């Protein structure tokens, strides 16, 4: 473990920018901490706290100048590694004929993602399983990216990474991991790239006290989870409860608005759409984030295969917590709790799964 002064983080941001990286980090915009391109320490959310609950997110200010005493806003690494809308192919027709080719990247600088939480790093590892072998554009962005984690000191009210085994301490998937201390940052190195950055920053070895402080922060954070979730007996718990009455009950509140799937850092569903110019000379094929809560997304062979909100909610939750394990070998949930916070009506996945577990095996009885 190593140590840099508080200003060392500013130097890291500039160093990455000088090396041609597009540095993405947390900053305050529109009453939330979002991830955007940053230029220096002054862009970070100094003295900002979050209060998160089901369907509610509020910022609070303090004057202590601490940069990372919050959990996460709506954004995760997904927004940058798997952009919400991306042109894939361009087709042009002119006198010489038709040319088909890949659409260029809108911003081809390699990414440096700073401020990712342990849950976010795990989420990237989950999306790697989905995209790396199949998707050249994702793979290229991912292989060139530098990932800089920051250990959580203050988890949010909807966090349950301890239950999912994905946090709060960064243990894998990072080039560098930081822990905010009173006089700077403890620095852990996770890769060769991280090692080079550490050397360039001139970090000194951390003292025994500093190491102990990092351990204490991680231990305290683990005890401050806003939520817990029992994931024993997955995937079969949800498979055998596919006719549970709870699905219909949650559907009475569910708006099928897609927010849970949009903020989920592992949800990867997308649509591929075509556009053509009025002249008919230019056509583009694009990919855009889509959702299992959209009727048009469950349109297959001439029908919407999941017509009710109950069917769509069941599909999402069962895929995320159960069939994802069969499909990719890991749970699709990293316990970040974003789906709980950013649901406009505050539907809580931990509450829904607990309710099904509490009445395991119940089936809906319909009376005429």
């Amino acid at each position, binding site marked *: 473990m190593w140590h840099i002064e508080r200003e060392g983080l500013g130097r890291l941001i500039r160093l990455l920018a000088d090396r041609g990286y597009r540095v993405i980090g947390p900053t305050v915009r529109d*009453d939330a901490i*979002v991830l955007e391109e940053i230029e220096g320490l002054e862009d970070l959310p100094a003295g900002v706290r979050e209060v998160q609950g089901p369907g509610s*997110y509020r910022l609070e200010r303090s004057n202590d100048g601490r940069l990372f005493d919050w959990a996460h806003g709506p954004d995760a690494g997904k927004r940058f590694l798997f952009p919400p809308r991306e042109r894939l192919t361009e087709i042009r027709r002119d006198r010489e004929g038709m040319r088909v080719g890949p659409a260029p990247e809108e911003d081809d600088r390699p990414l440096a993602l700073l401020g990712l939480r342990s849950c976010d790093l795990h989420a990237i590892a989950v999306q790697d399983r989905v995209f790396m072998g199949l998707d050249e554009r994702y793979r290229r962005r991912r292989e060139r990216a530098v990932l800089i984690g920051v250990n959580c000191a203050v988890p949010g009210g909807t966090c349950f990474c301890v239950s999912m085994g994905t946090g709060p301490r960064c243990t894998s998937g990072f080039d560098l991991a930081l822990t905010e201390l009173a006089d700077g940052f403890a620095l852990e190195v996770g890769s060769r790239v991280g090692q080079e950055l550490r050397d360039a920053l001139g970090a000194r070895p951390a003292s025994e006290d500093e190491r102990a402080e990092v351990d204490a922060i991680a231990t305290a954070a683990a005890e401050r989870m806003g939520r817990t979730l029992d994931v024993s007996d997955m995937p079969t718990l949800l498979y055998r409860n596919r006719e549970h009455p709870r699905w219909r009950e949650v559907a009475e509140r*569910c708006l099928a608005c897609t927010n849970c799937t949009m903020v989920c850092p592992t949800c990867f569903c997308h649509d591929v759409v075509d*556009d053509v110019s009025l002249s*008919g000379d230019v056509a583009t094929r694009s990919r855009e984030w889509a*959702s299992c809560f*959209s009727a048009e997304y469950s349109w297959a062979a001439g029908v919407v295969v999941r017509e009710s909100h109950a069917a769509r909610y069941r599909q999402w939750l069962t895929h995320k917590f159960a069939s994802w394990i069969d499909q990719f070998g890991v749970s699709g949930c990293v316990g970040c709790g974003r789906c709980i916070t950013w649901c406009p009506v505050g539907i809580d996945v931990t509450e829904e799964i607990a309710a099904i577990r509490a009445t395991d095996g119940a089936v809906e009885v319909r009376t005429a």
Partner: protein
Amino acid sequence: MNVRSRPRVAVFKMASCDGCQLQILDAEDALLELAGAIEIVNFAEASSDLRPGPYDITLVEGSVSTPEQEAQIREIREASRILITIGACATAGGIQALRNATGRLEEFVRTVYPTPEYVRTLEDSHPVADHVPVDLELTGCPIDRGELLHALASLLAGAKPRVSTSPVCLECKRRGAVCVVVAKGEPCLGPVTRTGCGAICPRFGRGCYGCFGPAQAPGNAEALGRRFIELGLRPKEAADRFRFITGWAPAFREAAARLEEVER
């Protein structure tokens, strides 16, 4: 819905404010390309050279609100291969549908117009599709120019236009807008309103007021209204959020009625 090259296009209006037609005239960069791709043969807002049908594609703005318009829309349908209705009035009856089912038409006419005896109007304002078959509906107040151009370009290429039925939230999140319901406790119709506008209101920090009309079926506008009540609106106020520009659209109309029940 394939059409021949450089189709004859007409644009008509019924009861409306002309704002959707202006989306065509304001198409700026696309205007020249548009003029090259289609032949506009009847568009009173743009030119007094009005030629008779038949038309390959007809765009209709406005609701059916007078007896004359009832007859006019049938003639337009007869003369048109592809009929596209544009805007909240043509697709949901518009703001003028606030009078519908109130039983107070005469009172409204007397209050609003200095010489009410000149006003001859239907009891209710209707979307065009209540009177004639419509091939494509583009909602919004006004419509989104990008959606219209996409629809025309697709038809010219012989493809089916893609008009999403997903909610505004999907586009809000794609564009990185912060949710105003969650982060500010502000009532927003985005979760149950059809996307197409580019999430313009939430991107400027205010709640969606539903001008693109209800999103996909089955919808759950009532549950959103119940959330508004939790956020501090009275049930009547929550109901009134749905009784606006697209308030006559069945999903919003029914949700408003049920929310008002709570008040009683």
